[in-house]
């Protein structure tokens, strides 16, 4: 038990880095994912094809493979990073954006047809229909699944700990090595810090879900 209190500075540092990784990758993935979803429903066949292929391939790639590629294979090919955080953010945001794209697309499909028809009938272009009418409504309905994806992102960021980034899981491994006699408490400490992020987020998703359900 003492080991948790003793190592609080490391835990705190790791906690902040986990939050940082998740926040930066989350924002990038939200933007890229929404763009991919927009491309998926656009009139240009090439954009649709690209978006579909990207989502299909990335969703079926294990995250560890993405990390291995970004952190081990890329440097061998001459793409070096000052910090491994950059590799982690690339892997996490590339991976998460595919899931965001799928969620947003299902949101677009859930908007009643009349909305798009009305928008077109008053002379809006595709870009206007999408950005002014469809996406604002679509994003609102997919907030709960998006939060769930972000929860998964927080948990997925733990893989970065195995690829040279000292976030919560990375510190957990290090501390477990240093305190061979108290491995269990070290890892319970890591678990508590993860739950500090994921449980409130899950609660938030639940609340939003209830609110949306009443609004509809």
């Amino acid at each position, binding site marked *: 038990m003492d080991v948790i209190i003793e190592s609080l500075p490391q835990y705190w540092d790791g906690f902040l880095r986990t939050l940082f990784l998740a926040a930066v990758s989350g924002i990038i993935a939200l933007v890229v994912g929404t763009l991919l979803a927009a491309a998926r429903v656009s009139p240009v066949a*090439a954009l649709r094809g690209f978006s579909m292929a990207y989502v299909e391939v990335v969703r*079926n790639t294990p995250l*560890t*493979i993405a990390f291995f590629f970004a952190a081990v294979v890329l440097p061998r090919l*001459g793409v070096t990073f000052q910090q491994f955080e950059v590799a982690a953010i690339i892997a996490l945001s590339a991976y998460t954006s595919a899931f965001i794209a799928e969620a947003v697309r299902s949101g677009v499909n859930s908007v009643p047809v009349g909305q798009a028809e009305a928008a077109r009938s008053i002379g809006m272009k595709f870009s206007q229909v999408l950005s002014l009418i469809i996406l604002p409504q679509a994003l609102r309905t997919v907030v709960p*699944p998006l939060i769930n994806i972000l929860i998964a992102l927080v948990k*997925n960021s733990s893989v970065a700990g195995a690829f040279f980034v000292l976030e919560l*899981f990375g510190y957990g491994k290090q501390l477990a090595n240093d305190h061979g006699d108290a491995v269990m408490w070290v890892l319970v400490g890591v678990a508590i810090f*993860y739950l500090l992020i*994921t449980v409130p987020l899950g609660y938030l998703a639940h609340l939003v879900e209830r609110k949306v359900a009443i609004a509809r």
Partner: protein
Amino acid sequence: MSSVLYDVPGPKARRVSLIGSVIGVVLIAALLAWAVMTLAQQGIFQAQRWAIFGQADVWTLLANGIGATLSAAAIAAVIAFPLGLLLCLMRISDVAWIRVPTRIVLEFLRGMPVVLMMLFVLLVFATSSFIAVVAGLVLYNAAIFAEIIRAGIQSLPRGQREAGLAIGLTSFQSRLTIELPQAVRRMLPSLVAQLVVLLKDTSLGYIVAYGELLRAVQVMADFLGPQFLFPVFFVAAAIYIAINLAVSRLAIWIERRGSKKAAGGVAKAPTAGVSTVVK
């Protein structure tokens, strides 16, 4: 849906979109060409780097990696599913002292990175890495299965349970013989989608030194020399993605089959699983 969002493109719009597509394709081709050139400068395409795939040993190692991946996934799935059913029944039990602790345990398991559970089992119980991988996968996926099936049970019409109770079944009998079978059937697409997640998560075994496919790549690169890292990684990644794509296709096929049946009178599967199956 997509056609609702825009007018049928006229000649001008078609021309613009064609030009845009061509430019896009050219850009992507240029990017690919640049990547290939960079790789070629590193000597990636020298024949002897790929010649290792002519050796039986390399394929044996890769096959062992695939075998380890698939066996961990299969064993974990086979244990996790019944455990998930059990946890689901406990989660919706009428008895508060079963229901409440189960709920806390499920929240705990779902909020935890799988790799942390693997490391926990590996270090605390000092097991083999195989058991650690399987245990981590079982704990996490049983919790997810439980939540998916619970969503399925909640989506059933209330009359199902009422009818079961009315003909004199106990609450547990009604759950087991009337509600569970329907819920599992409804949630089959979500359950298979979660199997894909499980299969993908076996690659986390790399982190706890389980000899799965990615670890086999690492071992070969260490053994044969770093110049072989890229070819071996490339082939292993392709194998991984191909297996996952195949299972995903299976999930889509099951979903289509289910919705075809739905047209024949059975209620359509709800989409509640969408929010639970993200990874």
